């Protein structure tokens, strides 16, 4: 036998009893081959070492832990039981109470955070009792209570006030605010209907309270036919000679506009419908002729059904613009009619243009 065969036999049968004939042949080979004899010693020592490894004993309490694990309900059953317990009335009430408390805590924390943000933004005036320096002389209790806060206010820097709206007619807003709810544009709400304030009146009232510089909302439903000849094409008021603006022509146009344009030209063939670009051009020309300027061109609204134009005009041109717009379309009920701001005060308008209603025929 060769050495490789002998070593394979030794490795595969370490410490085992070999068959008698095979054992004899291995023994004869090991007697003459020192390398294989050395390998046999190593394998025998290795096996003996493995056999002599200490036998570990299970720790104390092993049996009890096995019993505990064996008789414990499985995990899915424990989860199921927990869910069933949660659905019991008393646990459900507890759960609801806990959830309510959690919501209250969350809201409180959120409100506290918001309040902290407001204070950080210096929107709230600082407390004078904390930041005011103490007076040098000790006044009496009554005097201290009445004079110290005023002195503290005088010494403290005044908190920043929001900038006043330069282009918003405060007088008009005040007048608008005095208007009773349900009365828009001087018209009372029909009897028997709930008094719902129109959008523009409500918007103006809310805006006045906020003192913001938001523009005046004007909603205009455009006619689908071109305006009457001459209407909306009145000469532009000259800024230098506009003392009598809008003037005689405007009064004439106002008289004409009282008559329905389609009835007036009933003998003439009906004019073709105008496209939206020409309507926008008419409106922009009205703004330009009123010495105003277009702040933002027509842009589609949120619902895509109308367009919005932001413009700025002088206060004295408001009546002119309103009249011209009323000839191009139908103003929404409740649109502000007059502004009492001094001449030259810039007024911002947001024109919300609604396309004409589709005709059924």
């Amino acid at each position, binding site marked *: 036998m060769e050495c490789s065969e002998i070593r394979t036999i030794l490795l595969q*049968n370490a410490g085992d009893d070999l068959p008698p004939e095979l054992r004899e042949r291995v023994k004869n080979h090991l007697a003459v081959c020192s390398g294989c004899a050395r390998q046999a010693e190593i394998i025998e020592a*290795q096996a003996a070492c*493995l056999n002599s*490894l200490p*036998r*570990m*004993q299970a720790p104390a309490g092993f049996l009890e832990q096995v019993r505990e694990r064996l008789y414990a309900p499985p995990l899915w059953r424990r989860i199921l039981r927990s869910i069933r317990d949660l659905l019991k009335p008393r646990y459900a009430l507890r759960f609801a109470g806990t959830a309510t408390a959690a919501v209250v805590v969350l809201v409180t924390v959120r409100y506290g955070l918001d309040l902290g943000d407001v204070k950080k933004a210096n929107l709230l005036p600082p407390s004078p009792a904390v930041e005011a320096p103490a007076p040098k002389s000790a006044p009496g209790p009554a005097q201290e209570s009445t004079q110290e806060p005023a002195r503290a206010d005088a010494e403290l820097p005044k908190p920043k006030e929001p900038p006043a709206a330069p282009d918003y007619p405060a007088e008009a807003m005040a007048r608008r605010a005095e208007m009773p709810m349900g009365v828009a544009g001087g018209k009372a709400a029909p009897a028997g209907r709930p008094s719902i304030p129109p959008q523009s009146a409500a918007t103006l009232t809310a805006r006045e309270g906020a003192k913001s510089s938001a523009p005046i909302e004007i909603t205009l439903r455009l006619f689908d036919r071109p305006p009457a000849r001459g209407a909306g094409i009145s000469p532009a008021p000259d800024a230098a000679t506009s003392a009598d603006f809008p003037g005689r022509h405007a009064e004439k146009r106002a008289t004409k506009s009282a008559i329905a344009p389609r009835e007036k030209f009933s003998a003439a063939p009906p004019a073709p419908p105008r496209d939206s670009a020409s309507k926008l051009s008419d409106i922009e020309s009205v703004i330009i002729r009123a010495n105003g300027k277009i702040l933002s061109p027509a842009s589609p609204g949120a619902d895509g059904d109308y367009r919005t134009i932001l413009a700025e005009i002088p206060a004295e041109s408001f009546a002119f613009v309103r009249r011209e717009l009323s000839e191009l379309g139908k103003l929404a009920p409740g649109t502000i009619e007059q502004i009492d701001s001094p001449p030259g005060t810039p007024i911002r308008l947001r024109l919300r243009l609604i396309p004409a209603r589709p005709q059924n025929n």
Partner: protein
Amino acid sequence: MRDADRSDVEAYLSGERSALDRLVLRHRDRIYNLCFRLLGDPDDAQECAQETFVKVFRSLDGFRLQSSFSTWLHTIAVNTCRNRRNSAEFRFWKRVLRFGQARNEDDEPFEVEIPDSEPSVLTQLAEMEKTALVQSAMNALPYDYRTVLVLRHVQELSYEEICKITGYNPGTLKSKLARARVQLQKKIQACHGESRDGML
């Protein structure tokens, strides 16, 4: 032992709870020792040994009494240790590095059971060092090689029982044993120095 296992299994299946205690007490040390040698960590070994018994008793209804209860127990223990090792391999290897050291200063070391009845301190130290060296070398072996070595030399099971437990045929088992011994020899040489030639 085989007859005792059979009667205890039948008693447990008939509802006698004390039969469970007898079966656990009879096999707990062997199963714990097997798990410890396969995993190298006492905590993992205890966990796996307990899980082995729980699995066995939960599926005892399907156990056919033709085969040995001990062999079945060893089979489940080997598979449980394999699953454990695969699921927590990183933790396992991390813990193996601590083998042979006391967990705390107050704890006794694990290697307290030395067969010599009156060994000297030096002998004890040498035995501990040898045991730790062999165990660390075995931990470095592949799981299959470690399993056949432990079953053959530590648990001292026969080839037939090992074949039943591992599912190998005798030729494959002998081949794996031979390769495991060669690899163990190399590991011991690497751990103990080339001059020792694999001898301890």
